[in-house]
Structure formats: structure tokens, C-alpha cells
């Protein structure tokens, strides 16, 4: 593990920092030389980074940098042509997205992808689907294991509902909720999965300052209370610098920076990518 980290072409300082850290913490997700292309278009080229257990990892970059593609690779919606994905100490073979969800990766989406015809409660209960196993016969009778399971998970979901302060919209179809609340319900659905890794795709996009603050609070609370490892994409730099433990920067499908927030802030490549650079 140590060897591999030092081999990576990252800035010197970051390498030592990371080596130290990874000695203390476990690597939850390790992406090695990921390349993804659609037809002739290269979405991601040769990207490597890791996510440590218990950290908040931010993925940033300008529009079209490949951030969402990165998340889609992590939860198995896209299959990279090259590279290895190590999750929880094991190399991941070819898997369907739902199998990856069962392994313990949950996510939210950039454009809200809630089940609009279902109530908040049902959306959250669906988030727990990977933990439910009662057979169709008992479900049909609503007895035995099926009933016990429903109740146990209902209790778990109610805790999340309390945590996110959405008790009053428990039975409201989510299609009728305002945008900010929908975002919150979507976070709740991802939380309900009790996953090892939580992927948040622009959780604060389109929100006003207050909603953003709320959302930040929730993310930090989730992190503190449940100890969930979080990877998030965000555009708002101030938010990222405040809440992320480490940041990886993508631009045009390449990794141009990786490290602690203050390193990223002073990284010349990153500044160029965001502010543009004068070409001769």
C-alpha cells in the first residue's frame, strides 16, 4: 500500500502527508488509473485517488471536468475501460449498480432523482431496501418476518426523519415538495441505506444561503453522528474548503490536484483551471 501511494505522480508534500495518514486510517475506496470514454470522447483519463474511512472527501472541478462521471464509476453505473476499483479491501469485479449498493455505497443525484409518486416515508424505506429480505409469501400475508422487518426499518427510518427534521412531510408525495426539501429527502434516502460510503452529487446546488447552511450542518452531523465516509461534489469553494478533509480536483477528465484544502488553495494548476490561464 505504501509503495503504491509514493509511486503516484502527486505533489511531493501531499505524498508524505498521505503516506502518514494512510498509515493511521484504512483506505475505504481506492481508485487506480481509472479511464472512461464514451465512443471517442474521453471522460476520465488515468485517474487515481483514494478515500479513507471516516473522512469527507470533496471532488471539485469546472463544469464538464468529469466529476459526475467519477461518481457514476464509483457506484457502478459506468464501467471504466481501464483501471481498478478497490472497495473495502477487495478488488471489485464487474458488478451491477444494485450489487454495489448492497456492498455499502449510497448516493444522491445532481438532478433530484426521488421517486416522485411515493411519500417521503416510502422513499426513505426504499433507501433501506438492501437490508430487507422477507420472502414474497410473508410479504403477501404481512406476517412473520415481513411485518417484523417493516417495523424495524420503520423505526430506523423514523430516526432519520427526526434527524433531518422532516416529520411533517412524512406522508406527503415527494413530487409536491419544494426543491430544498426534496434535496433533504434525497439525503435522507441515501442515509437510510446505512452505507459505508455516501456519495453526494452537488447536495447544495440551487440552494440559497440558508438552505446551504442547513445542508452543511446536516452533512457534518451525519459525519459526526454516524461516522459515515462521505465523498461529495460541490461547486461552492467556500463550502468545500470548510467541510472537506481532503480535496481532489479534476479538469478535462484529468486529475490536477489532490490534497488538503489549503494545499489545493495554493496549487497553481487548480488556480489556472478555475481562473483560466493566458495562452500565448
Amino acid at each position: 500500500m505504501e509503495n503504491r501511494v509514493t509511486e503516484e505522480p502527486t505533489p511531493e508534500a501531499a505524498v508524505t502527508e498521505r503516506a502518514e495518514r494512510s498509515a493511521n486510517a484504512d483506505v475505504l475506496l481506492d481508485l487506480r488509473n481509472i479511464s472512461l470514454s464514451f465512443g471517442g470522447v474521453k471522460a476520465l483519463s488515468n485517474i487515481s485517488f483514494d478515500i479513507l474511512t471516516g473522512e469527507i472527501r470533496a471532488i471539485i472541478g469546472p463544469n464538464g471536468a468529469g466529476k459526475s462521471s467519477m461518481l457514476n464509476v464509483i457506484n457502478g453505473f459506468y464501467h471504466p475501460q481501464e483501471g481498478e476499483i478497490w472497495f473495502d479491501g477487495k478488488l471489485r469485479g464487474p458488478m451491477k449498480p444494485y450489487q454495489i449498493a448492497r456492498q455499502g455505497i449510497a448516493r444522491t443525484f445532481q438532478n433530484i432523482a426521488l421517486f416522485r409518486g411515493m411519500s417521503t416515508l416510502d422513499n426513505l424505506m426504499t433507501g433501506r431496501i438492501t437490508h430487507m429480505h422477507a420472502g414474497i409469501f410473508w410479504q403477501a400475508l404481512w406476517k412473520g418476518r415481513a411485518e417484523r422487518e417493516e417495523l424495524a426499518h420503520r423505526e430506523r427510518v423514523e430516526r432519520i426523519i427526526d434527524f433531518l427534521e422532516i416529520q411533517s412531510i412524512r406522508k406527503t408525495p415527494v413530487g409536491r415538495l419544494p426543491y430544498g426539501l426534496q434535496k433533504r429527502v434525497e439525503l435522507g434516502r441515501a442515509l437510510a441505506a446505512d452505507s459505508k460510503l455516501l456519495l453526494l452529487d452537488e447536495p447544495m446546488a440551487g440552494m440559497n444561503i440558508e438552505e446551504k447552511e442547513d445542508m452543511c450542518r446536516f452533512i457534518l452531523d451525519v459525519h459526526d453522528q454516524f461516522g459515515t465516509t462521505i465523498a461529495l461534489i460541490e461547486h461552492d469553494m467556500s463550502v468545500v474548503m470548510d467541510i472537506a478533509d481532503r480535496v481532489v480536483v479534476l479538469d478535462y477528465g484529468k486529475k490536477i490536484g489532490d490534497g488538503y484544502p489549503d494545499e489545493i488553495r495554493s496549487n497553481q494548476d487548480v488556480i489556472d483551471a478555475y481562473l483560466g490561464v493566458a495562452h500565448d
Partner: protein
Amino acid sequence: MSPVVLNTIEVILNGLMTGVMYSLVALGFVLIFKASGIFNYAQGVLALFAALTLVGFQTGQVPFAHVINATFGTDYHHWGEGMNTVLAILLTMAVMVLLAWLVERLVLRHLVNQEPIILFMATIGLAFFLEGLGDLMWGANIKVLDVGLPSGGSFWWEDVTRTWAAEGTEYWGMYIDVLDVWAAGIAVVLVVVLTLFSQYTETGRALRAVADDHQAALTVGISLRTIWVVVWSIAGFVALVAGIMWGAKSGVQFSLSLIALKALPVLILGGFTSIPGAIVGGLIIGVGEKLFEFAIGPMIGGATENWFAYVLALFFLMFRPQGLFGERIIERV
């Protein structure tokens, strides 16, 4: 050539002719789908309705005559001798335009931004509505439609093909219906006209713009509603042509709308957005079902034409869901 080969060729030729008919109906589907994303189940019934209306005008029927008679005990039938075929066709066309306008006004306008499947089910409703309306207006009896196209077997072709048979074999020549040849010719003309229309007229350009991107078309000032009326009118026109052909061939009757259902598998093969696809798909299905019935049918009890097209489409869907000419679908989150 041996009679078996000649028979096979005859089957293929007849399949091609049937295929042209399927293509004609499928063409209407594609036009509407491209311009509005609506899968118009009612296209077949539109053909039936057009044919019924045409016969009504031609023979001078009083619309709703038997409804009025049944209710009030009157005895209306015809208002006169009927009219000239060309005039009747023009009037029918006017009815189809009116229908297009009504459909846009009363149905489509209120279903903007609904999911495609809801729109699909709405057109099923429309199909039932039109079918019932057509029968109430013009009566449900089978009608003869004669627009003056020649029909019957071609003797010339029979004589020509008879000479192809090998010496000493018994072969009586191929049968081909002149009407089918006419239909094929008209279909070709129709496609050429539609292509020219969409390439070289302003409305045609607008149509293509809308087909490409609704939003973008709106921003440059194309009125979607007008386009929809235009497109449904054109689809009505195509339906009229298909109705005339089918009607002249086998009479104007309810089964017309069932035959038109076969346009659906045609579209699966050809792709929903491709006009050449609709034509090639129609031909493949036409030839395929005739050949299958000819070669395999007798072994398994015949009447395989009822399902062959659908099962073929089913297999197609498993392996190439976007159709022969459709674009590959890339899913996004």
C-alpha cells in the same frame, strides 16, 4: 428456374407489396413521433376514419344518418348522387386537417410535458373515440372504396414469368395485383414529396427543427402548436393515402385498424424516428411474414401472419432495442 424458386419469388414479391402498405401506415407514426414525441396509436384508426369519410363523401351519405333515423324514426340515407372522387378526396383532406386541429386543441395541448406513456395511452383513447365516431357517422357495414385505380391480376406479368420456368415443368406464371403495384408507386411518390417538403419549404425546415430539439425550436420562434397541427394534418394525409390503398384492396372495414397495428412492429424494426427505417422495416415485415407462412406455416397450422411480425419485433427488441436505423440510446443520471 424450378417452380419452387419461382413460387418463392412470387411470395417475396407479394410480401414486398404488403410491406409497402405497412410502410405507409408506419410513415404516419414516424412523422408524428419525430415532431412531438408522441407514439400515436390512433394512426391506423386515422386511416380507417379517412377511408370511411372518403366513401361517405363519394357516395353522398348523410353523416350520422342511422343514428338520427334510429332516434327519431326518420329515413335519411343520401343527400344526392355523391361527388367526384377528386373533390371527395379534397374534402376528406379538409376533414383530416380539422381533425388534426381539434386533436391539438382538445387533447395534445393539455398533455404537454406528460410522460410518453401517458400520451401513448391517450392516443389509445383517441383511437377508440375515432373508431366509434367513424362507425356512428358512416355506419359500420363494409364499404367498397373505388377511386378508379386499376386492380386485379396482371396478365402481362403472368405471361412473362411463365417463360421463366424450366422446360417440361408445370408453371402458370406469377400473380401480382396491379393495385399493389400502383400502391407501391404512390408510396414512392409520397415519400419523395414528403422529403422534398421537409427539405425545401419553410414549414418543412421548422418541422425538422422541432424534431431535433423542441426547446431550441421554441427559442427561435417556431410555434409548436402550429407545427403539431401541421404534422397531424400530414399524418392525416398519409393515413388517407393508406386508407385509400387498403380500402381499395380489401374494402373499408374495422379490420383495417387491426392491420394497421402491424405498423408497430414495423417501427420497432425501423426505429421510431427514421423514415427510411419505416419503409425498410415495412418491407422486411411484409416479406418476412409471407415467407414464414409459405415455408413454415403449413407445418404448424398456418395463420402465422397473425403473430409473426410481433414475435419478430420481440426478438429484435432483445438484441437491438433502438431498431435498425435508430440511434444508440445512452442513459444518463
